[in-house]
């Protein structure tokens, strides 16, 4: 369990930086088409912003923004976005994950439909990765330290 940091500098700087980190992460996710980056990197940076918040302001305050339950739901939803886009292509008459068929409902050319499909997929991946990394972070940092039935060498 991480307590709130008593260092003013860390707290204030973390407070100021977190929104910018989040926007940077979103930028990385959204601009995966043109520059290095994409869902995984963006998701991990998003998770890093929560980690920063957790390390500086304590887990209690972080939990107010992203609880374990919310993280679990978000990870499901993120992966479902990916799988759902694939299934949508299936419903629209293509093979699984054939984004070109999305053009039928989006009314764009197949190439652009694929581009938009990639964007959607990246958003799903980013959500899932962010939520899972938060989950793992919470799980490891809130694990009970004191063993209940603890056998030691003594």
């Amino acid at each position, binding site marked *: 369990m991480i307590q709130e940091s008593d260092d*003013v500098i860390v707290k204030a700087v973390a*407070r100021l930086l977190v*929104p910018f980190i989040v926007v940077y992460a979103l*930028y990385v996710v*959204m601009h995966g088409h043109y520059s290095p980056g994409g869902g995984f990197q963006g998701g991990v940076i998003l998770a890093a912003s929560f980690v920063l918040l957790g390390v500086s302001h304590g887990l209690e305050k972080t939990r107010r923004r992203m609880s374990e339950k919310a993280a679990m739901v978000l990870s499901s939803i993120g992966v479902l976005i990916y799988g759902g886009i694939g299934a949508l292509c299936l419903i629209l008459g293509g093979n699984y994950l054939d984004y070109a068929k999305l053009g039928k409902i989006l009314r764009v050319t197949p190439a652009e439909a694929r581009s938009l499909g990639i964007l959607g997929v990246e958003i799903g991946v980013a959500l899932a990765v962010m939520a899972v990394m938060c989950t793992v972070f919470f799980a490891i940092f809130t694990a009970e330290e004191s063993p209940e039935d603890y056998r030691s060498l003594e």
Partner: protein
Amino acid sequence: MEVTLLLESTDNAFRVMERAREHAVGLLDTAVQFTAEQTRFRQEKRGQLLFTGTQKRKTQFQNIVGTTIILLAFWMLLSGKFDAFHLTLGVICCALTAYLFHDLLFANVRVGDMRVIAARFIAYIPWLIQQIILANIHVASLVLRRKMPIDPQIVKFKTKLETDISCVTLANSITLTPGTITMDIKDGVFYVHAVSQKVANELNAGDMEDRVAHIFMEADHLYVEDVLDAARIYQTLRT
């Protein structure tokens, strides 16, 4: 020697200019602050919880808008793509972030002060850069002399800054200036490592602290003129 002279004269010029501007802004500030305080006092006295509720919501809304604008500027700096699609994405992302994190960027800052603070902060930067250059020259001269007359010491002083953000600005300014490093802040006491006596003296003089305090409109009473002005305004308002 000439360089130092030159720098000092520019310093003086800066100082004069800044004083003038400060004078004007400070006057305005105290007025604004005073009226705000008056209203708040009145509200609290009447105990209008509903009113403060809407006030809070309004503050929150202003926070969100302000955060969005700042983040959007950051986004455009990163993105460099200005077609409709990417701009829309940017607005959505920034608004979302601002909604989720609106209380982080502007915590402990009185609304309405933002513009003034920003202006003062921007005005503070050239001064800081100048200080950094001066300190650089100083440290370089220390190091390049054969005997290396350094005198490392830890300076401890109690600050008059109140909010955390001003403390952080001061601490980071101190750290940015070569020769001094902020080690810790505990209950308003700064522990600063200074490399020589001269640096430590400058630190103790508290020039930087005053300026930082000025940026964040804290401890304005330290400026005698401001105090006088405030007294004058107060008097005019009372009568």
